[in-house]
């Protein structure tokens, strides 16, 4: 919540200019901003007018940015210079070793984040030039066939990947909508078990076989060769390498690419490497939705939300899925109030996406954070900011510091 009076002159085109308002917004939270240094630090002190006179439990908060996840974890778990570090996407073993030193406690919470593969439903062939990965390019030569997607999905060992990449901070999943419970489908859970032989049999039965003896299957004459891209990140590159190996075992050739996260997610319409442009066959990233209601999130996959040149490549239907029956369900959900019915609709939409195999979910990711052992009152949630109850945080009695 921000103050209307403070931002009255900052609307529309003037939004970029309101430095003072943007750097020190007046709200109702437990802390107020003392100093804001972009890319570096924000200093807060307790809000004297906070609604609860006994809170917050700290006089000041220093919020440091920059650096990598390992050094953030180190500053909490090893040097004790900081009390809380979030988004610790590092090797689970390293984090466990740090926690074992006793200075910190690692906490996780699950929301709706799912690490997933998107299978491009349009043709990303570079020879098509500017129209590739758009409606004009036409459908993808083989990824629009659910049989191919299903075989790719069956070849993946989600349990192993998740254990290796995220440890306690992840759980294997077969749904793009894994939570809240009401909306989570159980219809696709068979995917948790890797089934390489099943995948091979499936492709053989469908007549997608290696006809020219080069070890790669052909789909109506087109070899099953895919370009698989994601952002640069140690865990994602591990996922890529393992998936590449499994796919090669079922006769699918995979070329791996990784792109710097600031470019991949940067959304610059002039860059060919953004996840929205999707100039590849398959890409992997994590997405989630804020809040607990999936209506807006499930509406991501309606036909007219494809990223395309006319929308400056904005749009949430990244894999270019389109099914009129799905659009009808989206419309129905927007006029349905009954919670049970909404649950059914959301599950049905999830299953429709899953059975199209245009999305292959892999890992339900939790937030991983670490807090100093002397910090109490933390109740981490991935449904809101991790700092939602920072007013209630206190120092363990007897462990106060200066």
């Amino acid at each position, binding site marked *: 919540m921000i103050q209307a009076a403070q931002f009255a002159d900052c609307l*529309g*085109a*003037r*939004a*970029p*200019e*309101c*430095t*003072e308002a*943007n*750097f020190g917004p007046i709200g109702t939270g437990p802390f107020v901003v003392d*100093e804001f*240094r*972009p*890319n*570096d*630090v924000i*200093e807060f002190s307790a809000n004297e007018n906070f609604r609860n006179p006994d809170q917050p439990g700290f006089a000041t908060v*220093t919020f*440091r940015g*920059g*650096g990598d996840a390992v*050094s953030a974890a*180190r*500053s909490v778990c*090893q*040097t*004790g*210079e900081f009390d809380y570090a979030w988004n610790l996407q590092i090797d689970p073993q390293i984090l466990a070793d740090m926690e074992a030193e006793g200075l910190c406690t690692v906490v996780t919470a699950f929301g709706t984040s799912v690490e997933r593969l998107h299978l491009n439903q349009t043709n990303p062939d570079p020879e098509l030039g500017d129209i590739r990965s758009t409606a004009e390019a036409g459908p993808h030569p083989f990824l629009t066939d659910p049989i191919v997607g299903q075989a790719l999905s069956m070849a993946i060992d989600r349990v192993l990947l998740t254990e290796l990449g995220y440890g306690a901070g992840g759980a294997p999943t077969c749904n793009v909508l894994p939570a809240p419970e009401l909306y989570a489908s159980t219809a696709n859970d068979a995917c948790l078990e890797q089934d390489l032989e099943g995948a091979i049999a499936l492709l053989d039965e469908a007549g997608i076989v290696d006809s020219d003896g080069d070890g790669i299957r052909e789909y109506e004459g087109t070899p099953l060769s895919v370009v698989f891209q994601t952002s640069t990140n140690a865990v994602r590159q591990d996922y890529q390498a393992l998936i590449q190996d499994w796919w090669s075992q079922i006769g699918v050739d995979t070329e791996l690419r990784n792109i*710097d996260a*600031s470019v991949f997610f*940067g*959304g*610059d*319409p*002039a*860059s060919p490497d953004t996840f929205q442009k999707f100039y590849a066959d398959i890409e992997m990233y994590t997405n989630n939705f804020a809040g607990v209601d999936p209506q807006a999130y499930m509406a991501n996959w309606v036909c007219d939300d494809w990223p395309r040149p006319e929308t*400056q490549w*904005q749009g949430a239907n990244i894999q270019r899925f389109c099914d009129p029956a799905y659009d009808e369900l989206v419309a129905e959900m927007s006029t349905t109030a009954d919670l049970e019915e909404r649950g059914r609709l959301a599950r049905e939409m999830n299953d429709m996406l899953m059975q199209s195999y245009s999305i292959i979910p892999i890992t339900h990711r939790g937030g991983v954070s670490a807090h100093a052992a002397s910090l109490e009152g933390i109740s981490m949630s991935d449904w809101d900011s991790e700092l939602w109850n920072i007013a209630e945080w206190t120092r363990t009695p007897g462990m106060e510091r200066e």
Partner: protein
Amino acid sequence: MVTYIIRRLVLAVPALIFISFIIFMIVKLSPSDPTANLPLTIPPEVREQIRESLGVNEPLVGQYLRWARMMFITEPLIMLEDALCSQDRLPGRVLPDGCWQIVPPDTSRIISYQTRSPVFDLIAVSLPQTLWVVGTSYIIGILIGVPLGIISAYKQYSVTDQAATFFSMVGFSIPTFFTGTMAIIIFSVWTPTDAWWWLPSSYTTTHVVNDWDSFVFQLRQMILPMMVLGLYNAAQISRYMRASMLDNLQQDYVRTARAKGMGERVVVLRHVLRNSLIPVVTVIALNVPAVFGGALITEQVFRVNGIGYQLIQAIRGADVPMVQTISFIFAVLVVTFNLIADVLYGILDPRIRYD
């Protein structure tokens, strides 16, 4: 000498204007959209208004002139205002009574795409860190490197020379991200936090030095980055110093000086050192701008929010005005230190006086 300096300064003006044009154009030619990082919920017509207000729809030359006016006129005048006024600014960049407001408060300034705040405010925040940490470590590097180079050249192949060579090879060949992380592990992680030799692993940029204790704290948080950078700089400088000293020690004039009965101290420190300093001065002076930009790995490791770190963040965020401005500041540093190096030649060697 004075005429020479004046002539060089006058010549520097068109050079810098030309450089600024090239930098502006090169950075500008990279595809980037100032609204690309804004939330997706902003409607297209508001996006267009924002682009309009930042002037990115004008022709390139117009954009350059707009930027140059802000860079060369508005921003220096605002700095002048601040220098003349001892009080803090009021909201809306209005100066309090008794101060001379040269620039009207609503004059547009160079705005960073990333943070939506004036670029020069960001630079003013990060420059002190760079000067403190990188600057002092460079001075320490010189103070260690020059004597070390002299000694190891004078006592070539002695134990001291071998030790110095080993030291400089280590400093030169191990990258700073490795020495930095090692230093953190040794002095911040393995050392108990209450020991007097424990050192903080990250740099607190908001720390204010106002008494002895806070000065000690400042010193402690500077030690690790200074150690890492100082090692690298000292290693580099001592190698140049040694090589240059060795060249000069073989010269005839050294034999002459000794034949005249001069003491070793005078021969080495007055005759040889002075002549050997010319190439070293070039290296030191021309490396200063590189030090400002090149310390960014160390800045990243110790989270010193310096100017190199800001530049990297700006490049990653496609923050065109910030990249243009910082690059231009580096260009100014290169031109300035070139001039300083030339003047120092004249002082060291009377034959080079350029008059």
